[in-house]
């Protein structure tokens, strides 16, 4: 009966494992409508805000006088004085949370995650791959948000004057923050993997940055808040410089490492349903 000599077991390297997992996740991302729907949402939302508030006779009055205000606040203000200081590219990180919840929720709902873990995929590969793919998706959403904003701003006739260097730093900062946010959402979805709607609600709750806004109400516009994802995301503003990009980079990487380690630990210690 035994013919073990014909069975060969070659241990796949980390590179092969992560490549396999990333390939699956990117394939899924590009071959299902979810990603494209959220790209469209990211483009439509700013266009709608600028369009409706900027139109003549708008009851709310124009939220923005300059198109780039819809991308980032002019100064790092954690204490919000008006909705215009809140309605900027950081909103992508709220929709992004919902997208991550759906993306990971489908893994569990369909049972595909069991197929992954039955084979050579390790829990850390799963965390890493999901974080990278979801951060890529969120970064793409930031880009479509930018396109939507620029087109709507041009149509409404908002001013485009800006310090180009600061704008680029702000955009870079926000793109980099996608990684940190994605890792937070992946982590939340790992914790609440059995409860899809709680995953979505928790992602939305953290994405709004309400905890940091609350803390800012007590602490004021303290730089300490930059160590948090929402803080750094606000810090990537229209008065940014290269230091802001560095801070966003460090904060984003640090949180994604923390969330990946915690997520891997939880996955390793708990059953997959």
């Amino acid at each position: 009966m035994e013919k073990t000599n014909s069975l060969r077991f070659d241990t796949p390297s980390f590179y092969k494992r992560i490549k396999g997992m990333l390939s699956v996740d990117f394939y899924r991302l590009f071959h299902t409508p979810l990603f494209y729907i959220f790209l469209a949402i990211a483009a439509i939302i700013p266009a709608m805000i600028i369009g409706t508030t900027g139109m003549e006779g708008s009851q709310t009055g124009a939220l923005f006088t300059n198109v780039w205000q819809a991308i980032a606040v002019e100064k790092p203000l954690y204490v919000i004085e008006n909705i215009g200081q809140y309605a900027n590219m950081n909103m992508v990180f709220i929709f992004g949370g919902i997208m991550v919840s759906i993306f990971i929720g489908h893994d569990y709902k369909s049972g595909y995650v069991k197929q992954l873990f039955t084979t050579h995929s390790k829990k850390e590969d799963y965390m890493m791959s999901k974080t990278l793919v979801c951060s890529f998706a969120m970064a793409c959403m930031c880009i479509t948000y930018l396109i939507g904003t620029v087109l709507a701003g041009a149509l409404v006739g908002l001013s485009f004057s800006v310090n180009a260097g600061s704008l680029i730093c702000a955009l870079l900062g926000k793109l980099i923050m996608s990684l940190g946010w994605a890792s937070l959402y992946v982590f939340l979805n790992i914790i609440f993997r059995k409860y899809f709607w709680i995953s979505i609600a928790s992602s939305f709750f953290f994405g709004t940055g309400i905890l940091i806004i609350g803390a800012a109400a007590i602490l004021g516009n303290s730089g300490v808040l930059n160590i948090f994802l929402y803080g750094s995301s606000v810090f990537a503003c229209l008065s940014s410089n290269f230091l802001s990009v560095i801070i966003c980079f460090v904060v984003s990487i640090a949180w994604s490492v923390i969330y990946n380690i915690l997520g891997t630990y939880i996955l390793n210690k708990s059953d997959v349903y």
Partner: protein
Amino acid sequence: MNAIEIRDLKKSFRGMYALNGLNMNVPVGSIYGFIGENGSGKSTTEKLICGHLVKDSGTIKLFGKDYTDAGIRIKVGALIENAGCFPGSSIYTNLKMQCLNLGIKNSDEEISRVLKIVRMEEHKELKFKKCSLGMKQRVGVAMALLGNPALLILDEPINGLDTDGMRIMREILIDITKDKNTTVLISSHILGELEKIATHYGIIRQGKMIQEISAKEMESRARIFVSFKVKDAKKTMSLLKKKYKNVKKEEDFVRVYDEEDVEGIVKYLIDNDIVPSEINKNKVGLEEYYIELMSNKEGK
């Protein structure tokens, strides 16, 4: 070397032991029928082997190595509970994703190969959610077969299938194991079907293995019986009980166990004015063996 070797495996859920010191040996190249009543721990064992659950204690070795070894795991395929496919995607897309995960280079060839094995070549563009239960089970087997696994774990793959579906699944399993390079661990309640394919059996009860036996050994140990179809079963029973120790009524038949002298029994019946309309000499099947074993363990 065994394909699966489990020692003193324990797993509890909220303080209740689902597995309580399970030992298991699945020989390489075997089709191992894993039998037990509902809640006996079959699925828990399979999920632990697949790494879906975290064990409390004990060891699981696959082909002599720890079950978490990535080199071994890449050669494990499973169908547990469901196929693990995205319902909105086509069969092809689902299989393609698993090919990417496994790092299979000629994915289209591999997909064609497994779809041919499960007789689904013509349905590859069909969305998974449009598949019938039988088709979904076959797609699940196809998923598990990608990359030529050395170990295939199938949890109740024939449950809910119609007669034709069961036949197809049986043929698939026989095809897979033809070269003896794939070991199959299969759990099922449909013992009649399992009996047709399994080479080994493991019988589990309350989280413990109560017997592991090869199909050959079971056959050699199986009790012989002679069954008679008669008009008056009651009268025949009482008559036969006077002369033979083990007499039982099974549906329309009266069985005399552990007796090989068919002629003698028939003569005895005829001498007493009982003419059987049908006579069979046989061995007890898996189902009876299992029921008997369970009854003995319960002290009945």
